[in-house]
Structure formats: structure tokens, C-alpha cells
């Protein structure tokens, strides 16, 4: 092998042995000293045959009736998704938009003020806010608004403007993440020749940052769009749950929570599919935009196919797990 320099023949064998060891170790520990107990428990928890049956049933339902099922009141799951998902979509779009625009702005601000006394306002606040747990921020803000800002209608979803507040809350954490990533990307370019050249030409600092450094960094920064969306979705779960905002994430959690009373597996699958599609679209947009700003253009379609396969893989894994979501 020319690239790896040292070839460890049999590394794969050792890998397989290692996986076996890990599985056995876990089995020994969880089976309380008895490996067989563990495997029989696993068999009990994950009955393979029933699982296939569940998936088949679901597919049949979808094929024959065009629906994955109905709720207790006889509403089809699709109607529920159409009712709840738009509410969440508004929040997601608001949050994503805020996170990206303000995140980049904050990153640039942090970069430009990194050596001035404003640094505390810049990187200081960014790293402080991004190290606070999201639930803490939401709880404190919610509490603060309940006590000091009565006029804001915190709870509710009926009015048209109700999505703004959850949108802002959801966007905070991804915004700080994006700001940090922008800052890192910009700071990595420090001391490069082209920057010195641009400064030597007598360009203003603004011109240097926006026209030269930013243009080169956009490619790197765009890589993080997918992660930002992941953070938005995960924060959405928490915000909707804590604020009782009746959106898709809230409805999905309710369905998961009352699995034992009346199972709505189809509904959970449909909601997660919607979220997966969102993540997928963001990833595709990210890849396309990256390609647009790349210095050396590579074949975009190869990357897009890669993303498609990655998400198909993830989706099948989620589907596989969900087929075990059965009432106990």
C-alpha cells in the first residue's frame, strides 16, 4: 500500500475480534455475569419475526388505504401532520434564518473585535452563551417573560404571531454555534499572504474582511448548515415541549409518551419523516452552495448521491427502530 505507509495485515481480523469482544463484554455486564441471559433478553425485546410483520403491515396499510392509520377520534394521521407540521415549519424557518444571518454577523463582529476591548462582548459572550445548556436558557427566559413581560403571550399557538417567540428561542443555540464556526474559519486565515497583500494595497479593513477573507471562508462556513439544522430541530423538540407550543415536535412527543394507551406508530413515523426531509434538504442545499463557492469545482452530483445514500441509510435505520415501537 503506497498511501498508508505501514500495512497492518490482519487489522480487519483484529477489528472483528474487537467488536466480538465488545459485544461479549456488554453481554457479560448486562446479563449480570451470564452471557446467555443477555441474548435471551435481547431476543425477547427485539422479536425479529414480529418486527418484519409490523413493517409489512405498515406498508400494506399505506399501499391499500393511502394512510398509515387513524387516531382515536378517527382522524387520519396525514390530516394531523398537515395540521401540526406547518406550525413547526414556521418556527423552524424563522429560527434557521435568524441563526444563519445573525450567526454570520456575530462571527464577523467577533473576528473584527478580537483584539479590542469589545472582545468580551464578542467571543466572550458567544462562548458563554453556547456553553449554557439550552434547557436552562429556555427555562430562564420563559420564567423572566412570565414575570416581567406579561404582555407577551408566551403560551399559545392560535394567533398568527405566536411562532415568533419560539422561533427566537430555538435560534439562540444554533446561532451561537454558527457564530463560533464563522469566527474559527475567519481566524484560521489569519496571517495568510493574500490578506497581507490586500492590506498592503491600502484596502479598508471592511473591504479585506468582506471581499477577501469572507469570500474564501464561505465555502467552509457553508459546511455547517446541516449541523445548524440538526441543532434547530433538537431545540425545537425542547422548546415546543417546555412551552406547550402545539407543533409537530410536541405532537410527536405526545404520541411517543402515550404509546401504551393508544399506539400511533404511523404518526411518529410520518413526523420523523418530515423532519428527516428537512434535514436532507438542508444538507443538499449546503452541498450545492458549497460547490458554488468552491475554488476547485468537483463533481457535485457525486456528493449529492453520497448525501442521498447517507440519508436513505439513516431513514431505514430509524424505520427499523420505530418498528419496535409497540405497545407493551
Amino acid at each position, binding site marked *: 500500500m503506497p498511501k498508508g505507509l505501514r500495512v497492518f495485515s490482519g487489522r480487519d481480523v483484529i477489528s472483528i475480534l474487537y467488536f466480538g469482544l465488545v459485544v461479549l463484554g456488554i453481554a457479560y*455486564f448486562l446479563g449480570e455475569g451470564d452471557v446467555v441471559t443477555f441474548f435471551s433478553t435481547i431476543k425477547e425485546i427485539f422479536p425479529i419475526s414480529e418486527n418484519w410483520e409490523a413493517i409489512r403491515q405498515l406498508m400494506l396499510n399505506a399501499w391499500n388505504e393511502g394512510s398509515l392509520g387513524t387516531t382515536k377520534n378517527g382522524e387520519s394521521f396525514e390530516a394531523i401532520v398537515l395540521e401540526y407540521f406547518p406550525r413547526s415549519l414556521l418556527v423552524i424557518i424563522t429560527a434557521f434564518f435568524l441563526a444563519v444571518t445573525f450567526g454570520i454577523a456575530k462571527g464577523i463582529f467577533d473576528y473584527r473585535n478580537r483584539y479590542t476591548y469589545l472582545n468580551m462582548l464578542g467571543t466572550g459572550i458567544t462562548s458563554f452563551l453556547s456553553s449554557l445548556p439550552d*434547557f436552562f436558557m429556555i427555562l430562564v427566559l420563559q420564567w423572566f417573560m412570565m414575570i416581567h413581560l406579561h404582555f407577551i403571550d408566551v403560551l399559545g399557538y392560535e394567533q398568527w404571531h405566536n411562532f415568533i417567540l419560539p422561533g427566537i428561542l430555538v435560534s439562540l443555540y444554533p446561532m451561537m454555534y454558527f457564530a463560533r464556526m464563522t469566527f474559527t474559519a475567519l481566524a484560521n486565515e489569519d496571517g495568510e499572504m493574500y490578506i497581507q497583500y490586500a492590506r498592503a494595497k491600502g484596502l479598508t479593513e471592511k473591504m479585506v474582511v468582506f471581499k477577501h477573507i469572507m469570500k474564501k471562508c464561505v465555502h467552509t462556513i457553508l459546511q455547517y448548515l446541516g449541523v445548524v439544522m440538526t441543532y434547530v430541530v433538537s431545540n425545537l*423538540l*425542547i422548546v415546543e415541549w417546555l412551552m406547550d407550543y402545539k407543533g409537530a415536535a410536541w405532537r410527536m412527543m405526545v404520541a411517543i409518551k402515550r404509546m401504551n394507551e393508544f399506539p400511533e406508530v404511523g404518526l411518529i413515523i410520518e413526523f420523523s419523516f418530515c423532519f428527516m426531509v428537512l434535514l436532507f434538504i438542508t444538507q443538499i442545499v449546503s452541498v450545492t452552495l458549497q460547490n458554488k463557492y468552491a475554488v476547485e469545482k468537483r463533481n457535485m452530483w457525486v456528493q449529492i448521491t453520497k448525501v442521498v445514500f447517507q440519508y436513505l441509510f*439513516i431513514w431505514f435505520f430509524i424505520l427499523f427502530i420505530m418498528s419496535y415501537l409497540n405497545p407493551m
Partner: protein
Amino acid sequence: MKNWSLWTGLLLLGLMLFISYIGPHLPFIEHTPPEHRMRFYENGEFGRAPFPPSKEDLLGTDREARDILSLIILGAKDTLKIIVLITVIRYIIAIPLAFLASTKKGIAYMVTNGWHSLFGSIPTIFAAILLVEIVAVDELGNGMYWKVFLISLIEVGRVSYIFAHEIYDVSQKEFVKASVTVGSTPFQLSVMHYLPTISQSLVVNFFNDLARVTLLIGQLALFEYFIEHAIEYIPGGGIFHEEAGYNSKTGIFDWPGLLSAARYEVMRAAWIALSPAVALTLLLLTFQLLSEGFRKMFERPVSSGKNRVVRSLIEQVSETFVSSRIAGPVTLAVFLVIVGIVVVSGVEKRVTEVTVPVEEVEIPGFIEDGRYERKDGQLVPTTEATTRKGGHYDKLSYLEQHMTKRSEQEYETDTLLFYCQFIGDGRCDQPKITFKEPVSTTEEAFGLLQEHLPDDVMVDEIRQTTERSIYLLSSKRMEESYAMTATLNISQIKVTFEITPEDKIEEATVQTGHW
């Protein structure tokens, strides 16, 4: 003190260890929950739990009048133990995998990469909820360890991916290639070159992962998934002593367990939700500061010279220590020893005392006017019912007299179907009412319910939306009859009528409180 994040982090870590090991022996800690939820003061006033923060209880109490400061201190050790355990398991599995995957090819790399891209693309909290939900861990004896393994497995891929790339980068360096030419085996290479190089980032990343795990178990708790203590929340606003509210089966709450009350309490008694949130946040900040501090320490071997002898001596020692090869391994070893001690000593389960000394509480005379009697040292209201035909918070026997009994929880009249959602002290709490014939207006529906609501009920407010209309009511009789033993807002009743898409009303729920 240039590396302030390291020092602050160490200080906070010291505080956390102090709280978890010495804290439970401090004199002001309440080890047993109090018997009564009421307190009587000298001037004849009295109050009901939860009590806000005061001199007596610095952080207030929860609904069972337990002191939150005590709960937090008692739960600290369990919280730390779980977090460290999850992270240690994750690293034990991930690091050898990273070594195997470091050539960026072969099975190990494929697994690492797949694992990373799988759980890296979906929100971690979502993956954790799904995994915990499908494994019916509560039925297993060692369910806690199942959950620990599940949660630690989620991010094994990420950790292993990071280190595989780091080791790969090192393997491309000149000194490694030189070592290969003199005939070092991969094992020798790993021990001599890879481990010392990555051990520094291992320490940094380990603390970072501790912080991530803290965040994750905090988030899980908000959705009421717990690792260690099975905690039950029985909805209903905590009307009955034994039944509603938060209860931990072992009597101990770890911090996530306390935090889980947040969703219900942040509007009413913010201190119950905020104190554990602050505690978890502090813990998370500790880990992050340590991670940041260690990174700075390894990054910055040169420090500014000051003329003080002791200081320069310390600096010299630490400089030689940091710049020498052993810095990483020694920190790693010290750190592993500490982790080992925490895990091993944490595994011993605490035994909770079962016997609770019964205290007699002096009851002011004004309560003893026949509305309450004492049974086994507890106040019990004597009022049977406040409604004419049986309803919310009435004795089941009273309901039986006026309605046809279908089962323990279900009662029937000509027009209505009564379903008691909760039963405690032989009372029907917060019933759900189904109209046999769907009613078209809320006024009519409310009229039908009138006989099943307290007879002096007053309508405070009516809220109308397209999907439901809510009547906020209050009743003085309820207050007089039950206030001493039930929740704060027993006099307030909320009736919610669900409006179906066909503009009919089929269902109504009666709840306590106006929120």
C-alpha cells in the same frame, strides 16, 4: 493566574466533589422528608407547600415540603456517578476502535464512519429518546445499566471518528515515518508516539464529552426519561397526599429527576425548576471550563516571567512538566485514578431510612370546627360532597347514590357519562365527562354540568377558541371544605369543553386550578 478557566474549573470541580462526598454529612441536610405539607406560624397564620426560598429553606421546598437544597446535595453524587460512568464506557469502547480505524480503511473505519454519520445527522436527543423507548428497560432488573450503555453507545462513533483522524494525522508526521524505518511495530508506534500525542486531546475531549452527557441527560429528564431513579409524575396538580405530584421510588432525586418538574412548575413555583437547572448548568460549565483550561495548558507551554522566586520556580517546574513527553500520560493516569475512585465508591448504594419519626403538629382551633377530623395524625376533610348530584372531588359513595355505577371509575346519568381520571382518598378527582348526545352550544353543555359542579360555583372567566372553550370557575365551599389538605388552588376549577370539527361538544374535562 492566566489560565483562569482551568483554575475556575478545578475550583468548581472541587466544590462539586465536596458537595457529593462531604455534603450529605453537613448538619443542615434533611435526610427524611417532612410529614406534613403545612406549616403553622406563631401568629396564627399557616401556609402550604411549596414554600418559596426563605431563611429557613434557602432554595425553597417542593410540593411535598422537602427542602430543595437538601435534595440537590443528596442527589449530587448519583448525578456525577452516572455522567462519569456513561462517558468512561464511551471512551473505553471508542479509543481502541479509533486505533483500529486510524489507517482510514478497513472494517473498523467503515464502522466508525457509518456510526458517526448515522448519529451525527439526527438530533442526539431524538436518538436517545427512541432507543430508551424501544428497550423496555423498566421491566429489567438492571435497567439502569441498559440505559447507561445505550446512551454511551450513541456517541461512540463520534469520539472514535475524532481520534481516528487525529491518529491518522500523527501517523503522517516525519518522526513516525522515521520510527517505522527503524522497524517499530504498530503496537510500539501506538505506545511510543500515538498515545502520548493524543493523550492531551484525550483529556480535553473527555471533559468536553462529560459536558455533552450532562446536557443530554438534562434534556432527557425534561422529557421524563431518567437513568437511575424511576420518578413518577402523576398528573392532577398534586391534590392527594400520596398520589399526585412527583415521587421517586427510592426517595432520592438526582438532579435530572428534580429538573423534570420544570415543565409543570416553572409557571407556578419557579424555584423548584430553576435550582436543579442551575445546578446542572454549573456542572456543565465546570466540565467545559476544565476542557478549555486543559486545552490552554497543553497549548501554551511558555509563560510570562515574573521576578518572584517561588512563582518562577513553580512555573519552571510546570513548564518542564508540560513541555516534556510525560505531561499527557501523567495527567491521563491521574485523571483515570480519580475517575476510578468516583466510579467505584459511587457504586455502593445508599440505604435510605425507612422509619420516619411521626411528629405531632399542633392544629389551631379554627380548623377544628367539624370540617376536618384527624386520622393517624393526618387531617382528613369530613365533607362528603359539594355538588348536588355528585361530581368533582366528591366521595365515590356519594356519586353512587346519585348515578348508576358502571365500574369503579365510571358513572352514568341519563345525559352524561362520568369518568374519574384519578381516585384518591375515595374521591373522584378531575372527572372527564362525555355527553351521550353531542350538544351544540357551550352554554347548554355547561347547563347540563351545573348539577355536578359545586353548588355555589361562580364563573370568573370564559375563554373561547375555535377548538375549545374554557370556563374558569371558583367555589368558596371547596375552599372551606378541603383547603387544609389539598393543593393551593382547590377552590379554582377549570372546565374545558372540546369542540369537534362539526361544532358539537362531546367531551368536557374538569380540572383543578386556573392555569
